[in-house]
């Protein structure tokens, strides 16, 4: 793991793919409950966690994300019955592959956050942002053309 001590100013860009039915509502709840989470977390609402295609995740990294998190309904609670079960397998394999290619494993994460878990949403995002800050800028899966 690379620890970025030299650049204290570094603010990670985090992309969070949130399931419309649970996690996005969880984010809403976090907001309305005045629970804070870093402004550097950019939320992209998806109809279900299984809508997240591996291409989305890689594209996020290409466009400057330093960490990508996918948040969906708890297993068993999927609005579409089983979407998150499929997502779970896909993301497990994809993350394992990224790890295999030497890309820091901490940069990707899946969390199950329900509509009632505003506090969990806030805590997860804070903790993830913290991890990514420690890790520093995404170098191994960056596209230099996209850097300004």
């Amino acid at each position, binding site marked *: *793991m690379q620890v970025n001590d030299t650049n204290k100013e570094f603010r990670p860009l985090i992309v969070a793919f949130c399931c419309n039915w649970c996690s996005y509502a969880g984010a809403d709840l976090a907001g309305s409950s005045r629970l804070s989470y870093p402004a550097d977390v950019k939320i992209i609402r998806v109809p279900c966690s299984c809508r997240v295609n*591996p*291409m989305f995740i*890689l594209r996020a990294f*290409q466009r400057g994300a330093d960490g990508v998190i996918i948040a969906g309904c708890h*297993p*068993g609670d999927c609005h579409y019955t*089983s979407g998150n*079960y*499929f997502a*779970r*397998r*896909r*993301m*497990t*394999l*994809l*993350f*394992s*592959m*990224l*790890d*295999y*290619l*030497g*890309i*820091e*494993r*901490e940069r*990707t*994460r*899946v969390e199950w956050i329900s509509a009632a878990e505003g506090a969990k949403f806030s805590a997860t995002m804070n903790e993830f942002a913290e991890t990514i800050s420690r890790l520093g800028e995404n170098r*191994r*899966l*960056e*596209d*230099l*053309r996209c850097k300004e």
Partner: protein
Amino acid sequence: MQRINDDVLNKCRDLIENGTCDRVLAWEEGEFCYDVTPAVFTGDTLGKMIYDDFCAANQSKYLIDESHKEGRIAALLKPCDTYSFNQLLKENRIKRENVYVLGVPCDGKIDAEKARGLGIKGILGAEIDGDTVAFETIYGKKTCSKKDVLHEKCLSCKGKKHMIFDELTDPEKEPETAVPENGTSRFDGVSKLENMTAEERFRFWRGELSRCIRCNACRNVCPACSCRQCVFDNPASGVSSKANTNDFEENLYHIIRAFHVAGRCTDCGECTRVCPENIPLHLLNRKFIKDINELYGEYQAGYDTALDAPLTSYTKQDAEPGIVHERGVR
């Protein structure tokens, strides 16, 4: 040198003469011993048909088109090809009734590039005698051990048993079960990488993938890559399929391609065989296969068309993605 077994040739002739088939998918000889080309033969051209230790190509992908033509085609399929054939059947890409699968035995196929790597250059012909290959070259006769010049896919052969066939040309030789040639060593390459540090793995893959010239040979030869239009050929997708622009695009292409065939890849090894840059692409596919085996139970694509594929099924007890983080920090 005779380049086809009489039994195989006669069997094909019979199939055409008795009306079972009207053509045969096999190989045609080239300029030297190794540059054989997949080709379709009719009754008139059967004399040019060959099948020997240089016929390495996986023929099953050609059957997508061939099986949708009129008539019935006999296809010479090696044991490993039958996995891909089965997988394509499962995906409804091949019209089964239009193909007569003629299972041919395989003793491992020879890779001329590996011979060149051993310093055997200017290859004109070869005589194979058991485990020894005697190459006739511009610079004289050179011999080597057959296993030193086998294709990567043959070194990790899944077994000599055909998964599907209408007839075998050599039923005596057919084993009861598929026994991997080299035990479990198929995943040794993956394990070796897994045991490296992330930094080492990153450097390894950059070294390999940076050679990619975006020729798309791996995709076009892959029996699992049978999409009518590939995402990498869609200009609206914003990826430049043929442009070797930078590291990211190389990573993206290979990760997405391997992911897209995960659970469907039979590990036929064609991607590695055709790569002009000798990138060990099988190490990507085998990583997925190994993970699937470890996390969701042993699964071999193309083994049984009735089984649920690992990425289109699930159990409630599946491992969480966090397992990737928990597997020991390397």
